[in-house]
């Protein structure tokens, strides 16, 4: 990997874990810059309806996606831009979708909460909590019949009180399906602290069904990756469903209309000390000896990348309502 300084001069040739670490940092940064672009475009009236941003939670999707193979499948949530980008969905096509453009990943039909990109392993993002859990459970049913693929469901801690959670974890456990359940615990279900509405420990719920469960630091991409790698390997080996609780925090409101007044004083600032990008920067230097200038170079590259992406999105055509007169039904081919 030819790394460059911010001024464009080549500084070092990275390899092995350092190179990989910088790549993980870059993917998280792409998510962060994407979400910032969405926020900014929302305020300008270019993104419509509502959006749920993944700012602060980037290590979860990036850490998990990094251990997946081409034939694995993932179901994300309505807070799913990070899930999509981590899987390799083109940021341009994703931002075009946010802006309702014809060139969007779903042609502008889906919008922020319902992104689907099967070519990049994303079977969907689900606007109703728990939908991701059942979709991944079913995907695992198909993957098991087709080979050794693993399905992943992302969902928030609020979903652990939903019927889908209880029904599907039992269903998957009984059938020993190759599915990894990733609970992204960002502490708040919409505006309500999860402790206020959740009995007992979340991790105890899968454990009582005999599902191997690990709680990890969701702000450390390497910690998430390590847990995911082991869990996916067990699922792939036929050991049945696996569960990871990733402890994280969203640095923004639940949705665009939420100022986050429910947060405890100082809580946000405290978690920002554990910003996954900050954690990664520190670890790249301390554990992998990566020069800060290299990381600065990545920052500059991604910033330039997004300036161009935003510009192209704003220039992209809207779908033609006449051409969008879609068929109600898929033409049957079998």
């Amino acid at each position, binding site marked *: 990997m030819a790394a460059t300084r911010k001024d464009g001069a080549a500084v070092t040739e990275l390899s092995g874990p350092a190179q990989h670490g910088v790549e993980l940092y870059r993917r998280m940064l792409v998510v962060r810059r994407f979400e910032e672009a969405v926020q900014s475009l929302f305020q300008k009236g270019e993104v419509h309806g509502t959006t749920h941003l993944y700012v602060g939670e980037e290590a979860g999707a990036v850490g998990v996606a990094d251990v997946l193979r081409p034939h694995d*499948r993932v*179901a994300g949530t309505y807070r799913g831009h990070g899930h999509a980008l981590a899987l390799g969905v083109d940021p341009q096509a994703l931002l075009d979708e946010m802006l309702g453009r014809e060139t969007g*990943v*779903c*042609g502008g*039909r*889906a919008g922020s909460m*319902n992104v*689907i*990109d*099967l*070519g990049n392993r994303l*079977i*969907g993002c*689900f*606007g*109703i909590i*728990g*939908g991701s*859990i*059942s*979709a*991944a*459970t*079913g*995907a*695992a*049913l*198909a*993957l098991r*019949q*087709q080979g050794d693929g693993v*399905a992943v469901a992302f969902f928030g801690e609020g979903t652990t009180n939903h*019927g*889908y959670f209880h*029904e*599907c974890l*039992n*269903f998957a456990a*009984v*059938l020993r399906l190759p599915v990894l359940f990733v609970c992204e615990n960002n502490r708040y279900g919409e505006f309500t602290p999860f402790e206020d509405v959740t009995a007992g420990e979340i991790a105890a719920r899968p454990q009582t069904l005999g599902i191997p469960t690990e709680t990890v630091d969701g702000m450390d991409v390497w910690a998430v990756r390590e847990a995911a790698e082991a869990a996916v390997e067990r699922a792939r080996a036929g050991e049945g469903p696996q569960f990871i609780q990733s402890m994280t925090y969203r640095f923004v409101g639940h949705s665009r209309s939420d100022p986050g007044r429910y947060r405890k004083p100082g809580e946000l600032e405290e978690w920002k000390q554990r910003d996954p990008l900050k954690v990664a920067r520190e670890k790249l230097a301390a554990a992998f000896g990566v020069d800060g200038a290299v990381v600065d170079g990545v920052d500059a590259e991604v910033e330039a990348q997004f300036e161009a992406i935003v510009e192209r999105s704003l220039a992209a055509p809207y779908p033609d309502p006449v051409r969008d007169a*879609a*068929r*109600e*039904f*898929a*033409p*049957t*081919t*079998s």
Partner: protein
Amino acid sequence: MADKLEFRRAIRDALDEELARDERVVFFGEDVAKPGGVFAATPGLYDAHGEARVFDTPISELAITGAAFGAAVCGLRPVIEIMFADFLPLAMDGMVNQAAKYWYLSNEQAPAPIVVRSAYGAGGRFGAIHSQSPVAWFQNVPGLKIVAPSTPADAKALLKAAIRDDNPVLFLEHKRLYSLKGDAPTEEVTTIGEAKVVRAGGDLTIAAVATSVHHALAAAETLAAKGLEAEVVDLRSLRPLDVPAVVASVTKTNRLLVVEEGPLTGGWAGELVAQVSEHALGELDDVWRLATDDLPTPYSPPLEDDFLPGTEAIVASVRERLGVAAGA
């Protein structure tokens, strides 16, 4: 009558043949595999095709339906059973929000080919929450097909067609039809969305599905004795609705009665009447609906019998509406 096909056997045979034909087909639900189904509609499939493809599930309609959707968009063609149609509200998210919208929302990346089999309908003394018709709950959902056969032949052909269809299909089996015997299908697969004229007549069109078709046919015989010849149209599918077939019949008869086993208000009969009126108002001298009162299905036999639009109710409704000579 050894060569006659029982309705429940038609269901079983359709599943059996499609499981054998296409390895992507899987079948699961509550009590469907080892026990063979609570209506004895699926015996032997587990033995024939193995537990990887035919299996029993927990009593978890959310999981069954959501998993069917997830499997479908990853390449399988799942058939699931929701034991009683009254349980379909629990399955609704997977059907309505996930499967039915997938083709459109994904910008036609992939369809979600699931078949949701469900036993529905009244007349069995099952009470209010094991007797309903769910058609009106689902007819308003773009992307979802709804089928309700009236004969063993159609049950077999249309279930096979549903399994081969790339779209989600709600396949409704009226529970009063499971023991009905009839001819085997002559066609391998029938296209979903085509109605069938099952009795010709020139004075009145009666449109119906499932058991109501049989009631309409019996009523037509009674009415014929009074000099009124009813044409009976078996819609077979509620979405898509074969409006052209009904319009063609009405063009001949100028009168339309739609019989629906379900509450009058907001029912599918109203939708059919609206569409036929829009397309052929000039052909209509009269149009009306016969459905149930806007009440839950009662349990007590005399209450339930009175509640349902059966043969006698159809005859009475026609005679009252059209002034057919009294005396029969």
